[in-house]
């Protein structure tokens, strides 16, 4: 019951967040130098005038903002400046499934891989196994996406010729393997480190040590008392991990030529595609707000000591 109340409270609280976000995005974009109608070949005046009119650019800023917020409420993010045959809503809806598929797969891979590695390392703290596992974890952190991705392509697509070098192919699993791996590796490494550190801390806590002293078998202790507190910081990290995956997907989408939101986003910013940039920002904002809500809720379930303030 309290959880339901908490969730509704947070949902209601999300509205001002979104408004702030929209205004922030709006004014940031508006103050950027270089306009959407700067082309190599300059536009005739009359044409530019009509363009500005068509996109409401001549209205005072507050009016533009109100109109924009109004149309967002109806789910309309306006027409794209760059992709003139499409609306921003259409573009987001076509890019999002790609990014979602990529991101979700990468998060899961990172969690499973990182969690396992971290646990193994913690249970064998300071052993050779611990060192070598964490060592390779660190290799994962140390290699940037944009080196890892072409390296994977070079090995698996060019040299071995067993996986495609790029393209989305409507999400065919074979095409997703390399992008997902390239995206997940650094996050897996972070999660492994976090898991290891946190688990060692829990294992060394008075509580666990007391339980051990009482003679409970190690496995029982781990499954009953260690895993939950161990993964609290990991769950806390899911937010940043998602943000990192979104950022990383910009690189991965570009290198593998995937039609995801990350690419629209960069293209939009570069082309001064006001509406597309704002659309993507707000959309990501919504996602992150929703995601944080889920993380907080889960956190509350796992660690009942935290009382929701609402």
């Amino acid at each position, binding site marked *: 019951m309290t959880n339901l109340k908490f969730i509704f409270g947070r949902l209601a609280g999300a509205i001002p967040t979104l408004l702030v976000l929209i205004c922030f995005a709006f004014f940031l974009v508006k103050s950027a130098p*270089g306009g959407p109608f*700067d082309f*190599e070949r300059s536009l005739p005046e009359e044409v530019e005038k*009509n363009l500005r009119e068509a996109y409401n650019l001549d209205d005072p800023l507050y009016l533009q903002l109100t109109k924009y917020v109004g149309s967002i409420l109806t789910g309309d993010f306006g027409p794209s400046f760059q992709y*003139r*045959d499409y609306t921003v809503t259409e573009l987001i809806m076509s890019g999002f499934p790609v990014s979602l598929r990529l991101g979700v797969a990468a998060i899961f891979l990172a969690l499973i891989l990182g969690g396992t590695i971290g646990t193994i390392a913690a249970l064998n703290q300071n052993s050779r196994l611990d060192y070598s596992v964490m*060592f390779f974890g660190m290799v994962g952190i140390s290699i940037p996406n944009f080196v890892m991705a072409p390296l994977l392509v070079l090995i698996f697509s060019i040299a071995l010729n067993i996986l495609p070098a790029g393209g989305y192919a409507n999400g065919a699993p074979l095409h997703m393997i390399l992008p997902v791996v390239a995206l997940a590796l650094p996050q897996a490494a972070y999660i492994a480190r976090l898991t290891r550190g946190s688990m060692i801390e829990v294992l060394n806590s008075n509580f666990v040590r007391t339980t051990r002293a009482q003679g409970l078998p190690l496995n029982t202790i781990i499954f009953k008392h260690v895993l939950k507190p161990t993964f609290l910081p990991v769950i806390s990290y899911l937010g940043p991990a998602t943000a990192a995956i979104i950022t990383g997907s910009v690189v991965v989408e570009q290198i593998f030529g995937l039609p995801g939101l990350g690419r629209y986003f960069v293209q939009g910013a*570069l082309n001064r595609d006001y509406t597309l940039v704002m659309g993507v920002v707000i959309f990501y904002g919504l996602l992150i707000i929703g995601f944080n809500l889920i993380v907080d809720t889960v956190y509350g379930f796992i660690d009942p000591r935290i009382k929701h303030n609402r």
Partner: protein
Amino acid sequence: MRNGFSLFFVAILLAACGQDEESSCLVDDGWVVGGESGSELAIDQIFRRNNGAEPGTLDPHRAEGVTASNVLRDIFEGLVAETANGEYTPGVAESWVISDDGKVYTFQIRSDARWSNGDPVTADDFVFSLRRSVDPKTLSNYSSMLYPIKNARDVVRGEMSSEELGVTALAPDVLQIKLEESTPYFIGMLSHSITYPVHRPSVELYGNQFTRPENLVSNGAFVLAEWKVQDYILVSRNKNYWNDASTTLEQVFFYPLDNANSTLTRYRANELDFTDTVPSEQLPWIKDCLADELHVAPYFGSYYYGFNMEKEPFGGNKPLRHALAMAIDRTVITELVLGAGQIPAYTFIPPVKDYAGIPPEWATWTQEDRNKKARELYREAGYDEANPLAIEVVYNTSENHKRVALAIASMWKQTLGVETALRNQEWKVFLETRRLKEDTEIFRGGWIGDYDDPYTFSELLHSENEMNHSGFANEDYDALLKSASEKSAGAERLKDLQDAESLMLETMPVIPLYFYVSQHLIKPWIVGLEGNALDHHQSKYIKILKRERLPSD
């Protein structure tokens, strides 16, 4: 833990050695192409080309840039078309007559020209389309290209209704276009997408959604089948095209990949048949490993650095401009920095048809002599080692622009002692900076001709041209251009343009650096592509040969 470190170093060293051996080529060349006859065709006639970026729109009248025109050229056809090597050839118009004064063109529309839904293509379609192109309400980026047509300028400026445009349907299959002046390159312009016909009923029905695959009716050799933004554009053969009998390809994929290195790897993994360009830092490797598949051809484009003539230190300091121009070793840039066979440029306009600019005298000197002269001029301009010039070069973000800028900065420093700061800006900011002329000193410029006539370059430096970013303003230059545009085609007109260019080079508001080349990697099983000056490659001329794996031994 030391084990860990040494392990890591060993791994890196191993990788390094492995890499070294590998840099002998890792390419997939085990193919027999064309079967026994060498020209046997593949069963699947599918062509996969990288298009470099996503087109903003496929509305031919609003489209901008190379990427959109590459697709539009396949799915639409104008009055005039192009052959594989870039010659103009009858398109929807099977023939035309030009009046003696060169101001009235009368086109005979082909009787078998059809839209993809079976409707005939008529003169009225062109009247509708050209009016639509110049109508400022269409929001076209290129409408100013049509200024040679009678009244076009006034229509674009909103001072006249589009019905007054000098375009009339004399009969359902006869179209007349009146021009303001005789415009010798007008036929060439008629192969540009701004002049393509659009299907009136679907434009009126669907508005700006008429370019969706499910709505688009077009008249080219192909029709739009699928358009997945940032994924691919798929066009497939148009059975209603008047010359469908000579089309071989069934489908063409246009990919919007903007990363030249991943494009290269995808090409190597046989996921692409054709690349839009090649990454210049990979050229040495490509020349070693894929030499047979690299196709380079002169491209009607000019790469230059412009001075801001409206500000210090370059406005009014001619010796300084000349000193900087001379101190650049263009051969180093074309051969070492770029290396694809670009042509060192001492004139602004690339040679085209009968036209070639007259290079300044120092173009024939050795670089040492040029450097010597440059140092003299530099001193004359009021600078020396104790009092060096400090300037800023602004260019738009791109690997090649960066390399050229670094090279030039280093040459200026080594020859003259000039301190050059580099500033790269992303495209839209760059365009604004350059247009405003407020804080530019030296800027990168590049121009690809819109049609094959020197005028497409000459007009860039006209004092009233909006793209004249250096702020060069010379009455004599403007007068020579005017005199040229009043003349019909021929040596006299070209002479005017040549004089204008020489005059400009004498003032040196821009430093010509090199003429572009087009660079493509093309798979050996692709035939029918020819290099041409405008880098137009139409799918209707392409065939895919049969390919089989060499039996591995």
